[in-house]
Each structure stands twice: as C-alpha cells, then as structure tokens.
C-alpha cells in the first residue's frame, strides 16, 4: 500500500515540515494539521500480492526501495510516499519524535560543527562539501526497565593518629547490605542493522517531552526504516547499557567509607514495557580528500557525531603548544617561589 498526502488546496504532494510540525505543501505553501488531515485527501493504493514493488500514484513509476524502507521519495517524480503496509500490525511504531531541525538548519548546524573542530584539517572546516543530507527516521526500541539489586559489601573506615612516637592506623570494617528498587524509563537501543550502534548511542539523549503517538504523515518527505531486530533480540544490548548506570547508582547509596569491596552484587532487571519508536536523524555524507565521511545529526537537538578527519599537524601543534606553555608557566612559578630558573 502506497500513501500520498494530497494538498486540499492544489493537489500537490505534501510533506512534513519540521518548523511548524504540520504537513506543508511545497507548491502553494498550504499547511495542514496532522491530527485533523482530511481523510479524503489521503490517497491510498493497494498492490495486491506483492511486497517489494510499489507504484507511485503520481507518475506510475515503480518505487524502488530496500526491504526495510517505510518512507521514501519516488525516484522518478520526487513525490514523498509512505509505504503503509510496512508500518502496520507488528510493524506499527508506537511513538515518534518528529524532526525539529529542518534541512537548512541541519546544513547550518553541520557547518558550525565543522568550524568548531580543533583537530580537523583546514579544508574540512569550511563544511562546504556536503554531498548529501538525508533525513531519516531510525527505528529504536525504548525499554521501561524494572528490577532490583541485592548488594553485600565490606566497607572500611580508616583513622590514623599519633601518640608519642608511634603512628596508629585504625581500620574499622563494616558489613554493608542494600536492597534497591530500580526503575529506568525509555532507555533506547537502535533496531536498525545498518546504523552503527556507537554512533547512535552518541546521538542521545533525545528530549522525550516531544515524544508523540505515531502517525504516518510525520514520515512524508523523509526516509524511514522498519526494525531489523525485535525487542527480545535487543534487550541484552539495553541491559549492557544500563548496568553501568545501576553500578553508579549503587555506589551513591554506599557512602562514608574509605573503601568498599563488593562481596555479592545481584542485579535483576526485566523489561516492563517496550515502545517501538522512530527517532529523527540527519545523515550527512561529506566528501573530503577523495573519501566519503559519514556523520549523523540528532534531528531534534542538532548534536553531530561521527569520525572527522584528523590533521596530524594540528595535533602536533596543540600538543607542543600546551606542553610549552604549561612548561613555561611552571618555570615562572618555580622562579617566583624559588628564585632560580634552572
């Protein structure tokens, strides 16, 4: 099933506008609220029995997509289309964070980011070789996690005091027990095989106050994918993500000791709820030195991640600069205090 959102004003294909949060018509500028978009303007076409081939309603061309794609553009006429059967049933997302960074803003934010790169080569810093920017909704699973932790530890308190010419070191040992209720809400893990996990983790955090119930029109004009891994497959990844958080929390509950050694640490975490959610990501493909560099930008906050090229000269310059200036500073202090330079 292919969906077009037709403008009630002029009949052109509407796309989601990240500035207004509405559907917007590129030819007449008309805007429509997503919640109240008139049903008769949603043009659906069913393709019986075939899963891979869709036809554009506008021009009749075959829409070429990968199996995971759920929203794209017609490669022939450019009209935004949403592939609805890949977004229904088990594949229906529960939530979505719509794009709030528009393409122009994304380009500007990316250029600003390249200028701030202190170790990147000069040519890279102009940020003017963006080959392609793609706005994409990346599938994530959000987990509500509930659990408990049972902790046994030995804490020590050390006190030293002097009496006569003897120094006494007194060490008190304590048995420490903690029972902790744990609850974490909406911990994300990206469910797309294509996306680099490390890159996606660095894009966090997203602002959940703008988390919306999913509606298909949000996808019009962007690319979107469906998940490759289900919530069961990804749970271990989310677990490995929150264990350091849990450890950090546990250590805050045990205070007042000079050292703590854990004798037993039992953490039991289960998922309470999962939400299939689409997060907005701008993918930036950038040419530099005959190589393509890929960056990702949080489509909500504008945070950029990805490995920029590094200039060895600049690294050396920063290193010598910092080393020299701190050396001179320390020498100056030593001279001021000691009265001798060498």
């Amino acid at each position, binding site marked *: 099933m292919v969906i077009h959102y037709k403008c009630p004003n002029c009949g052109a294909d509407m796309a989601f506008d990240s500035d207004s949060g509405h559907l917007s018509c590129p030819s007449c500028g008309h805007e429509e609220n997503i919640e109240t978009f008139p049903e008769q303007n949603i043009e659906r076409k069913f393709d019986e029995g075939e899963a891979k081939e869709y036809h554009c309603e506008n021009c009749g061309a075959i829409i070429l997509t990968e199996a995971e794609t759920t929203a794209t553009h017609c490669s022939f006429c450019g009209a935004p289309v949403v592939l609805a059967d890949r977004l229904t049933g088990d594949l229906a997302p529960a939530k979505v964070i719509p794009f709030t960074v528009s393409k122009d803003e994304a380009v500007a934010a990316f250029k600003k980011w390249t200028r701030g790169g202190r170790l990147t080569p000069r040519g890279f810093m102009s940020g003017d070789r963006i080959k392609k920017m793609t706005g994409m909704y990346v599938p994530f699973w959000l987990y509500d996690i509930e659990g408990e932790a049972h902790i046994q530890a030995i804490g020590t308190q050390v006190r030293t005091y002097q009496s006569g010419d003897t120094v006494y070191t007194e060490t008190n040992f304590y048995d*420490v027990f903690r029972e902790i209720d744990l*609850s974490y809400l909406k911990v994300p893990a990206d469910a797309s095989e294509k996306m680099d996990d490390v890159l996606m*983790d660095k894009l966090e955090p997203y602002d959940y106050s703008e988390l919306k119930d999913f509606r298909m029109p949000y996808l019009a004009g962007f690319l979107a994918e469906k998940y490759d891994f289900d919530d069961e497959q990804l749970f271990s990844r989310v677990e490995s993500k929150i264990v350091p958080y849990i450890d950090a929390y546990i250590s805050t509950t045990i205070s007042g000791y000079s050292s703590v050694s854990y004798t037993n640490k039992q953490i039991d975490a289960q998922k309470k709820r999962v939400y299939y959610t689409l997060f907005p990501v701008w993918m930036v493909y950038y040419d530099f030195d005959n190589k393509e560099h890929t960056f990702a930008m949080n489509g909500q906050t504008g945070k950029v991640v990805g490995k920029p090229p590094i200039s060895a000269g600049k690294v050396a310059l920063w290193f010598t600069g910092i080393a020299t200036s701190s050396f001179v500073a320390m020498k100056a202090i030593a*001279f001021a205090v000691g009265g001798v330079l060498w």
Partner: protein
Amino acid sequence: MRDFLSKLARVPMLILLLFFIGGLSVSAQAGDLIHDEAGLLSAGEAQELEALAERYGAEQGVDFLFLTTDSTGGQSIEGYMGDFFDRRADSTGREDAVLLTIDIGGREVYLAGFGTAERTLDSERVDLVLDRIIPEMRSGDYAGAFEETIVTSSEYMEYRPGVNPESIFLKTWFHLAVALLLAGIVVGSMLYNAGGRVTTTPGTYVDRDHTRVRSHSDRFRNKTVTRRKIPKNKDGGGFGGGGGMTGGGRSFSGGGRSF
C-alpha cells in the same frame, strides 16, 4: 624576573670589583680558607680546593672555610669550630662564611653557615648538604666532600631563603614531565571526543520516583590497628641541627653527623 635582571646587571660590576680588590684579597687570603690541621689533604688538593672555594666564595659573597683536626681537645665539635670562627672573624673582620669542620679523631663532621649564610644556607639546607657528603666522608674522600660542600651549598644559596632547593616542584625534569603529561591528556581527550561525546549520564533515564533503597544496614564487624614507630634521626647519627651561638656571640645555622 626582576631579580634575574638585576642579577644580570650586577655581573659587570662584580667583574670590575674583582679586578680592583680581587688581587688584593686573594693575596691577603692565600691559604686562609683551608685549615687542614689533621693533614687530610695533599698539597695539590689543598691548592685546588682553595682556588675553587675562592671562585665560588666570590660569587656568593661568603668564605667557604675548611677546618680539620685530630682532636677537639675535649670540646664538642660545635664549640671547637665556634672558637675557630670567632678567632678568624675577629682578626679578618669577615663574618659571612660557610664552615665545614671535620674532627677525624671523633669521626664527626659539622657544617655551619655564618652571617648571610646563616639565612641562605639554613639548617634544613645544611642537612641536605650533609646527606650528600656523608658517603664521601665514609670513604675517606675528604677533598671530594669539601668540593661537594662548596658546589652544592652555592647551588642552594641561589634559591630564595626558606625554600627547599631539592623540592620536586623546582626540578626541571618534573616540569617537563607534567607539561608533557598535561598536553597528552588534553590532546588525547580532544581526539577521543572529536567524534562526538557521550552526553548521557546515569541520571538520564532513571525513574527517580521508583528507584530507591528499599532496605539498608551498615553493621560494625571488627577493627584492626597497626602501629608504626616514627624513625628517629638519619643513620650516622645527626646532632646539633638548627645551629646555635658561638662563644663569641655569633649565631649560625648548622648541623653535624658522625661518620
């Protein structure tokens, strides 16, 4: 820095001064700095040390004196060297001096600073110099010990009074190491963060309403006590630390050791 400049400005003046009075004082003092009554030095060593003491003494504005004896005649080594210095100062009028005394009979050594050297070579610094010369004293290299005393004391006297000249914070290798380490850490973290930083914290996804300690206990279990004696003076036995007053009423910084 200003000190440094004024020191620099003083150099030509010093040379000029040396020209005028240098010849005079050298002739008046010839053989006056080394009083090797116990005969621990050869004639050649004595001459060399005399020259060295003069050169460094002129730089620091003090006399580097070397006194050896077979016996202090029942006196303490401090008293003996005090009397010697009183006699010398009374006759020459030179009050600023660093005096290394060796009593080869009692196998004791005493280093003292008089006049300006009482401040520039205070008792803490004396102790540091003694640390350095004790190995030479033990091996019988008395010329080496005096040479070391002159060179090290001069070096220490360059430092502002009260500062520990052996402090690690004044060492160039330490400055270099810290500078390189700092630059390494800063540039390393810049490199590490070039691809974007992880900005989620343990608090990002926590549900504060339902994450809590349900029960807790901290029970005292046992205690251990270890004792450590504070070590007394350094080996070789130190004495007379902190200096004192000569019979003639001259105060000095100083310290002594047996060897």
